[in-house]
């Protein structure tokens, strides 16, 4: 496990965003412009306190995971709060993560 850094200067967090699938391309554009170097998407479905949206017609939610530096995570959260939270179904959280080859993600 030599190639894994503990939380330090190169710390990485795992940011997970669950949202309406119609937002996929718009949101990944935003991730890139905030400084994320990659992401992983799975198709999902769900229920939440808000639950008002149209994308059900097209099959549900997406769940995006991105390993980023805390600064980038914070920038993405700001974008979410500004451009998505009021109008779209979004749930977002971060988890601490220890990642192999952290230089790829920060």
């Amino acid at each position, binding site marked *: 496990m030599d190639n894994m850094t503990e939380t330090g200067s190169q710390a990485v967090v795992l940011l997970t965003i669950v949202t309406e699938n*119609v*937002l996929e*391309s718009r949101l990944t554009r935003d991730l890139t412009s905030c400084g994320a170097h990659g992401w992983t998407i799975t198709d999902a479905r769900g229920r939440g306190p808000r639950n008002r949206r*149209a*994308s*059900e*017609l*097209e*099959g*549900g939610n997406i769940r995006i995971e991105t390993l980023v530096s805390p600064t980038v995570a914070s920038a993405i959260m700001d974008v979410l709060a500004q451009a998505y939270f009021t109008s779209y179904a979004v749930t977002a959280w971060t988890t601490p993560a220890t990642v192999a080859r952290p230089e790829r993600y920060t």
Partner: protein
Amino acid sequence: MDISANLALAMGNLTSPPVLAFVLGLVAVWIKADIRLPDAAYQAISMYLLLAIGLKGGVALRESDPAEVVQPVAITLLLGIAIPIAAFALLRWMTHLGATDRGAIAAHYGSTSLVTFTAALVFLEAAKVSFEGYVATLLTLLEIPGIVIGLLLARRGQGSTASLRASLHEVLTSRSVLLLAGGLLIGAATGPSGYSRTEPFFGALFTGVLTLFLLEMGALAGRRLPDLRTAGAGLIAFAVAFPVLAGTVGVTAGIVAGMSLGGATVLGVLCASASYIAAPAAVRLALPDANPGYYLTASLGITFPFNLVIGIPLYLVIAETLAPLIG
């Protein structure tokens, strides 16, 4: 006008497998049963329907006399602009909704519904009423302008148009537009001989596949019905009255443009039906604050079943009634 013949038509429509499958989907939601198609199958089938409609329309377009097509095309484009404006205005009068919600609804009613169109073709074929092959072209033409106008109406006076432009790009390059338009071009290029080898797939299976698809649409519409309570009486009235109005205008326009009885009926159906594939995605992106509880409930929960069950035969009756008066 022969009333009993019209009743027979309406009954034939009501007992056709696609309409009955739609009802089965509604019932399934009602008794809380899960009858939905897997998402991948739903996507694949809608791609099939779009391509099949496009192909068939393209083959027919190639066989058409260009002179004969010009007028219907022009009038369809006009209707594509007029209908969403009319819807927007009427909604102000009939409901208390704000500009955003009214624009969102106008975008849906200004565009058109592939499945309703398809059900109309199946109905006319079963009723042995012929129609022009190029109607699929009209479908394609009518899909986009209404959405654009609706979005513009909703955003009049608002600043940013950046996300509007992005949304329009997404609409224009959406799968449904591409498959319909692409299918039309392929059909026109390959002609009847090329098409004939794909006919067992794109032609013969069509009604059966549509039946399966309408099962799913019934479940989708059924899930919208609980929202009727919050939609308000004005919107419900609009969702029934506007299709009849727009359908009558469409039928009239078709007759004026020299189309056959069947063709005018189809143009009526196109005008009367509201989009629930292209428009909702575009509206969700461009007008995030419009409430899907209004636009989806109206278009998918009310207008779609209304057209499927009552509207389609009604527009044929209207065409039969108006044709001798106008033609």
